[in-house]
């Protein structure tokens, strides 16, 4: 049996088959990876029961999705260029970071490996690179983290808003 999981099994199906059940009357959206623009897709309400909350702000539109397995993922879409400039997650399971970080994923993997190799110990990441910040925390069944491109944050916002 194949079970489609938001931010889970997507990497094998292409990045855009992310399906969400929207709140009343809202248009259908899919989330984009960091650096991309959000796109619309058809909704398969039979398969996915994630809930979506859209929070409209001055600098960002925040798309907050609660996965059916309890993990909350937020995407921060810049009001100035319409692209995802930050993502965050918290919950019992780490979301699919390959899907979530998109073109930044390889950079994340390399930087994470470098931090791990320093001592060979599992500990929270604090990746601070010019175009990518990744910070993680937590432990088994309680993970959290965020990633953003510090150079792409819109005017009137700062890194503290990505949470």
């Amino acid at each position, binding site marked *: *049996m194949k*079970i489609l999981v938001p931010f*889970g099994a997507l990497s094998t199906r292409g990045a855009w088959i992310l399906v969400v059940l929207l709140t009343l009357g809202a248009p259908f959206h899919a989330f984009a990876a960091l650096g991309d623009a959000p796109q619309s897709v058809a909704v398969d309400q039979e398969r996915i029961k994630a809930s979506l909350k859209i929070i409209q702000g001055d600098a960002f539109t925040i798309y907050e999705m609660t996965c059916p397995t309890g993990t909350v993922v937020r995407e921060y879409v810049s009001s100035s260029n319409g692209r995802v400039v930050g993502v965050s997650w918290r919950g019992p399971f780490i979301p699919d970071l390959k899907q979530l970080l998109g073109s930044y994923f390889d950079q994340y993997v390399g930087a994470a490996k470098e*931090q791990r190799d320093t001592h060979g110990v599992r*500990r929270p*990441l604090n990746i601070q690179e010019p175009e990518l910040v990744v910070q993680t925390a937590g432990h088994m069944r309680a993970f959290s983290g965020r990633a953003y491109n510090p150079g792409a944050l819109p005017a009137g916002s700062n890194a503290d808003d990505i*949470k």
Partner: protein
Amino acid sequence: MILSRVRSLRTAAIATILAAFAFLPGCFKAGTPPVAGAVTIELTSPAQTFPLSPGAATTVTATVYDESNNGVTWTSTPVNFGAISGQTSVTGTSNFQTVATITYTAPANISANTTVTITATSVSNPTITASVPIKVSPTVVSLETVLPLTGNSIPAAAQTLAPGQILTLTGAVLPLTVNSQGVAWTLTPADAGSLTGQTTGSANYVAPATISSPLTATVTATAIADSNATASVQVTVLPSGAATNVVVVNVDGGPVPLKVYPNGVFTSVTICNPGSNSSSSPVCQSVDGILVDTGSYGLRLLQSEIALLSLPTFVDGLGNTLENCASNVDGSYLWGPVSQADLYIGGETTVFTSPLPVQVISSTDVIVPESCSNGGTANLNTSQLLGANGILGIGPESTDCTLNGVNLCDGSSQATPPNLYYTCPKVGCATTDSPVVVAPLQQVTNPILFLTNTGTFSTDNNGAILRLPSVSGVESSVTGTLTFGIGTEPNNLLGSATVLTLDSTDQFTTSFNNQTLTNSFIDSGSDALFFPDSLTICTDNPQFFCPASLTALSAEMNGATEGQATVNFSVDNADNLLSNNPGSAAFSNLAGPSGTYQSCANGNASCVFDWGLPFFYGRSVYTHIDACLPPPVACSPTQAAWWAF
């Protein structure tokens, strides 16, 4: 058409070539060709009661019918594992029959039980082959301790003893052969107590009568016939006395040579094939360098460290094996089958309950589903990568897929979690495999749930107490204890400890520097305190803080419904600490960021205070395991998950 037949004196012989129609073994005599021009090979070898020991030899004889009298060539697999020698061939004895005999010699060093396949191939017709399996095993010393009350023996696990206490050990050499000769005994250091009553099968370790600080000694049994085969048990003599529900833990840098794991607390376990008792094949292995982790659930062992064992897995009706994925906070993961084992730790064992589901971390580079591997993050499947030989996850939940008493993986409460359990065919998983639901009894289980004290037969299964001495700045290493059970024996009473209850995500709140950090937890598997602060981030180690000088701080812990405590701690410059103390393992002032201060002061619901190992120095920290039924069933405080110290 292939015409061949194979017969062996051993029932397990493998016929690699079968007649296309049913010629049953024994239906006709060797040397009587069923069809003119055909070739037949029949292999025999002496009956193998015990596996071959390292360097031991056996013979294999091929009786070949071949009108060309060309005989056979010999091969063995695995290749370059042992040697074939002394090929003799007597041709044309009668009826075009050739009898060829070889000697197979096992390698001098064997790391795991192995079945070698010896194959004879016809020279006249290379499509005709016959094979026979030969079992080979390392020489292994089986070490057991004799229980004082019953006189029963159990596999030797690390022991704590009181001054003057006597520990009786028995040693046997496996596989059993006619001249195993037994074992010789050594004590290291030689003056750490004494060995008395030594025979080739048993010895008594006598702890020193008086000591002022914990003393650790290792008793080793070495096979007299093979000095490479040894088994050891670590004994720690505690001035305060000892009990069978106590095991020693060490902050000693871990098991990887030339690599110091800072603030890692390690113990050792003995793992056995489930239900095993004395038999001709090795059944138990002791593994040291096991990280004690109150931030995870379940025992996870590197396959390479238990290579002599054959732990059964969970297999479904289609022959698929249940595999487990454990994600780490840094994006790395552990992958391998859920396996059933008997566990001995200190004087506690799981054998009175049922085999413990553990994760065996696959040592080979197998294909891992992308939803677990995340397409490229690190698979920590060696001791160098993991910094340990395994992880003893003894946090406050019962399995690795339980939260607040609710099982998230059995399909009862929610959709299948994205990256925990998979079922894969024998050939392995595919990158596209999807996760599956799993019954609770097949999930990787907190080992404490299954523990029984072999001395008192008390079930010490509701939690544990990790006690470490104070560390003032930096120490090369420290020794502490892990006591099983809370309130189950005279030495594990809660007393006046402060209890912190947990919320629906098994976390509590820490108030620190005008932040309310709702996702707080106590984690012996974190090598530092991690929290959001504006302290300077280190240059060399950006996962740590580097204040200009030692900085004293204070935080307040608040349990979900009860418990409050003020905790004072200090943060030192991690770059200086680590570079100035390259051989040291215990650091009381190591801390690093989790998120950023500004973000968390603004009311971020996911902000974390990770009370890592420095919190344990100078404390007794109790972890009580959730024994509640899922909501809405009310849960009494005595059943709930909590921390106390």
